[in-house]
Each structure stands twice: as C-alpha cells, then as structure tokens.
C-alpha cells in the first residue's frame, strides 16, 4: 500500500497498522476497516482518502475541526451514505456484513438522530425493538439504566435526556460495532460516567469508532485518526 502523504493529500493519519487479511494470523471476531474513503458534495471534497481500522476490544478515535468530515465518515461507515471511492470491510461475529446488513447491525449515535416526538420514550424504543426483532423489554431496561423516564414524550425531553435516549437507541440491539458521533454532547457529569461505563462494557467484546472535535476522556483509545479541514 502506497503511503498517502506522498501524494500531497490534505490529511490521513498513518497510525493505524495496515490490515491485510491474507497475512494476519488471528482472524478478528469483529472488525471495521475502511480504506481510501472519498466523498465529495458537488465540488466540495469532504473526505479524501481516509483510512482506519478497529478490531474487537479496540476504540478508534476520529478527531478534526468542524467541517472536516467526521460525521460524513461515520454516516458512510453506518451505510447511511455512499462513499464515492474506497472500501469498507465489516465483520461481526466472524461474518462479513454487506451494506444492507451493516446498516441494520451497527449501533449508531449521532446528534442528527431524532425520535418521534408524539411517542413516549418507551414507545419509541419499543417500536425500534420491534423493527429490529429485539425483545421489547430491552427498551425499558435501557431507559432505567440511563436514568430516563419511561412515559415522557420524546418531544418534551431536555437535550441531555435526548442524548441519553440516543445512547439507548444505539445499544438497543446489543451491536458489536458502535459508531458514536459526539457521544458525550450535552451530558452532565453523572451522564458521562454512565455512558462511559456502558462503553467500557461494550469494549470487553465489541469495537467502537468515536468521532469528536477534540480528543476526550474515553475508557481507552487504541487508534487515532485526525482529519484535517
């Protein structure tokens, strides 16, 4: 693989060891690997040749200024947007996930995710649980764990509570791959402690990719990609 900085690209952080399936001796149970991701909006190139990887138990942190393409990258990884170039490899429990499967299997958290404001928090989670074929009781458990009221309309939640509900949505189907865009936004100190605990739990087996403008307090950071604007 050719080193990318030689081509004079704007960024790309080579701290990640190159993943080469044919060479690696132990096949990871979970893996998210992206190579040469390119996405432009019209002539505005947001992502140019971005690479990164995380395996089970690892956390990949993506930082960069506003507009550097963190959210775009995470949307591409979640299958909510199509990169124009590049390859995304996603393995969960040893199984290769294609685009459609990846979209439904990953846990995704982003400030853009919103919930049905006419429905209560519990009704929202029960709906998504039903759609994912998950036990509906799981919604209530997560609400209790995150200290959220069950019968409050989602439209009447404070911004911190909405962020907790996003966490509940992301963890609902116990995904092994978590994509977190600004996961600590609007959370108070107990909230940050709660979700960090949940993240730590998740990392005993799963992997996570976290995007944030600045480096932040996380249980662990194994790889770091800095996107230049």
């Amino acid at each position, binding site marked *: 693989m050719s080193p990318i900085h030689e081509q004079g690209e704007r960024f790309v952080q080579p701290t990640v060891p190159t993943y080469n399936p044919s060479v690696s001796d132990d096949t990871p149970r979970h893996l998210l690997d992206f190579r040469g991701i390119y996405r*432009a*909006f*019209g*002539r*505005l*190139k947001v992502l140019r040749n971005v690479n990164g990887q995380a395996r089970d138990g690892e956390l990949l942190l993506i930082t960069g200024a506003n507009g550097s393409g963190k959210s775009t990258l995470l949307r591409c990884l979640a299958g909510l*947007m*199509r990169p124009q170039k590049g390859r995304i490899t996603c393995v969960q429990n040893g199984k290769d996930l294609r685009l459609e499967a990846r979209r439904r299997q990953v846990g995704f958290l982003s400030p853009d995710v919103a919930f049905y404001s006419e429905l209560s928090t519990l009704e929202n989670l029960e709906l998504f649980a039903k759609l994912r074929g998950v036990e509906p009781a799981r919604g209530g458990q997560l609400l209790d764990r995150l200290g959220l009221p069950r019968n409050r309309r989602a439209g009447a939640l404070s911004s911190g509570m909405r962020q907790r509900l996003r966490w509940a949505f992301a963890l609902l189907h116990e995904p092994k791959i978590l994509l977190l865009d600004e996961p600590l936004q609007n959370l108070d100190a107990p909230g940050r402690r709660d979700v960090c605990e949940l993240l730590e739990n998740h990392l005993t087996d799963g992997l996570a990719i976290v995007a944030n403008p600045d480096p932040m307090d996380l249980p662990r950071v194994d790889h770091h990609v800095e996107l230049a604007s």
Partner: protein
Amino acid sequence: MKNILRWSLWLWISGVIVAALLWAPLAQGFSGLYGDAPQSSRIVFFHVPLAVASFFAFMTAAVWSILYLIKRHPKQDFHAHAAIEVGLVFCVLATVTGAVWSKVQWGKYWNWDPRQLSIAIALLFYGAYLSARGAIEDPEVRARISAAYSALGIVVAPFLFFIMPRMASFSLHPKPGGAEMDRAIGTVVVAAIAGFTALFYWMQSLRARMLALEASDLEPEDELAAP
C-alpha cells in the same frame, strides 16, 4: 472513423429531407380540412420520426437509469440525463408538428386524441424529471432519485403507448399496426426514422460528455461551489 460516421449521418439526413420534400408522393386523403393544402401531408416525414425517436430516447433513459441503480457509476447518470434532455427536445418538436398537422387536417390544434394524451403526459413526466434534478443538491442523491423516477416511467409507458390508444373509441392516428401507406412514402418514413434516431443518439452522447465534463473537478476552486 468518427468523422466518417458523422458525415454519413449528415448525408443520410439530407437525403431524407430531399426525398421527403421532392421525391415522395403525396398521401391520399391528407390534403387539409378543405382540400386546399395538399403538401401538408409531407409533415409525416418529420412528425412520425420525431415521435419515434423521442420514444427511443425515453427507453434509453430508462435503461441507463436502471443500469445506474445497479452499477452506481456517474457516467450512467450522465447518459440518462442527456437522453431525457435531448429526448425532451424531440418530444416537443413531435408535439408541435403534430398539433400543426392536426390544425390543418382536422381544424383543431388539440383534441385529446389518445396519442396526444400520451405525449402530453410524457412531456409532463420528463419535465418533472428535470425539475426533480434541480431540486436535489447532492449529486449522488440526485442521480439515485432521478434514476428511480425515470425507471418508474417504464410502468407508465405501456399504458400510454399501447393500452390507452387501443382503448379509445376514436383516434386521428392509425391504430398500432393498422396503418397502410404507399410504398415510397413508407420507405422515406423508415429512412427518416433511422436518420432521426441516429441523430438523437449522436446528440445524446455529445450531451452526456458535456455533462461529465461539467461535473468533473478540473477546476481548482473547491470551496467556491460549497453547498
């Protein structure tokens, strides 16, 4: 090679025009409402080929669109877009020539003949395609949505072109497969259809190349076009 093809297209179309205006005989029974416009039937050599070419245009657009939805290469989107744009021009010309002929022959520009209904809906449909493209900013989303819309046209097309004309109780147009015409007239019509269809494909490929160039990022001013 390309030059030879282009020149033979010009020669062919010139030949068709000369044959249509000078060589082909006049069609019987098409000399105007009061029999005072015998030359008017010659419009058939332009009206029918234009209509046929615009039908090909829209089928071409649908094929490129479906290809795009499978392969997702921007080139296929440019081809579909170009086919619609050029096809729309052909379609408008077919409508206008038809309306003029209808006025001469039957006294009214428009009378909701089933073929007029089909072409009116086709005009609306592909106008809608272009306005949908204008309403979506992201090229990927734009290509995807407009390709799906043009593929949807395949469902509507058989109704417009085959079922509804047969259903209608009256029509100024010959029923599909029911037309009988003079051999010489038929020959020129077929030659004109071939010529205009080739003309369409030539214009369409030029337009597709233009669209590809417009979209390519040769310009260094990345930030100028920020959404």
